[in-house]
């Protein structure tokens, strides 16, 4: 007797032929195989390798995600010299559809900057990052900033192997962006509200509202309001980076596993 669908017929080609003669009277001979496998599994496997590589070298890898134009590159240009004084040694991997303009700008700070030109691809994935890692001297690094392609949708779904995710939102945008793009913001380990020097001209943007949207995503991560034009506003961010880097040395550090 069939053990699979309970149709009462023996599981043999002859019975299938017999059943075909009276299709309405007998159930179709089918089996449902239960499985559970993530469709992001291939990317997640490479991300896990990247994460292990970063951990081996004690490198704090940070995935910076935002819409285009939040000032990710300018922030790094301002931040890297401040971190160099600590001293924390930084490198940057930056993704863009075209040009190496951002890498050139960052290289002027003295940090090693690698441009990934994605063509028409709208996000970085773990393999793109893995492919450029051999170009970096990880043993001589403390922090690797991975500046993702400016996009609030696709980067959210691709783990790169980072330890922490940073979401940026500029005051020129809607302050409710975290509510509109929950997939990206709910996983952020830090939210930065950028270009705060423009706040006097943009009274409709309320940083408190952005933070409330983030909290509605059950996200307890810090939210910092900064301006790269006013380097003193970056002090809390520098403190956060120092703490996160120091935490890497702790055996109990909870490495982000997505």
């Amino acid at each position: 007797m069939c053990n699979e669908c309970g149709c009462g017929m023996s599981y043999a080609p002859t019975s299938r032929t017999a059943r075909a003669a009276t299709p309405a009277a007998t159930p179709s001979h089918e089996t449902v195989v239960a499985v559970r496998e993530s469709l992001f599994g291939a990317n997640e496997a490479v991300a896990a390798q990247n994460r292990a590589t970063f951990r081996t070298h004690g490198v704090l890898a940070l995935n910076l995600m935002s819409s285009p134009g939040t000032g990710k590159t300018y922030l790094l240009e301002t931040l890297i010299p401040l971190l160099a004084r600590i001293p924390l040694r930084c490198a940057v991997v930056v993704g863009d559809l075209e040009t190496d303009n951002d890498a050139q700008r960052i290289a002027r700070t003295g940090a090693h900057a690698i441009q990934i030109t994605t063509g028409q691809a709208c996000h970085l994935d773990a393999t793109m990052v893995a492919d450029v890692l051999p170009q970096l001297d990880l043993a001589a690094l403390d922090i690797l900033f991975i500046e993702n392609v400016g996009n609030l949708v696709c980067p959210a779904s691709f783990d790169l192997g980072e330890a922490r995710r940073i979401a940026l939102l500029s005051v020129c945008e809607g302050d409710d962006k975290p509510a509109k793009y929950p997939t990206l913001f709910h996983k952020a380990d830090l939210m930065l509200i950028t270009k705060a020097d423009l706040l006097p001209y943009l009274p409709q943007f309320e940083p408190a509202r952005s933070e409330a949207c983030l909290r509605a995503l059950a996200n307890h991560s810090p939210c910092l309001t900064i301006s790269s034009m006013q380097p003193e506003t970056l002090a809390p961010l520098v403190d956060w980076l120092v703490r996160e880097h120091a935490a890497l040395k702790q055996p109990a550090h909870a490495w982000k596993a997505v």
Partner: protein
Amino acid sequence: MHELSLCQALIATAERQLAARPEHAGRRLKALKVSVGALSGCEPDLLMHLFPHATPGTQAEGAELKVEFQPAQVACNACGERRDVSANQLACPACGGNNVSLVAGDGVFLTGLTLSDD
């Protein structure tokens, strides 16, 4: 998001699962069941629309795609409530607290394969 590449990943995953089950060799893949989370970045309608374009020449050719939407589900660490919530309101609907854990709704999974003899 990237529904076409997700369709390709889905088919590759299904073919790998089938290859690991030689007892079903020769049977036809009639349907694939997928769970799509509200916070996965994947749009179920696009997945359904693109699936037939990804199947020709694969074992999934002619198969039906069954998509099951998985709402965001949180477990409250304060009051213990476990409930489905909207994707941008993840606080606990029972006690209002936001000390919750997201327990479902952030992934895309192949969950079932229907195999047929005909």
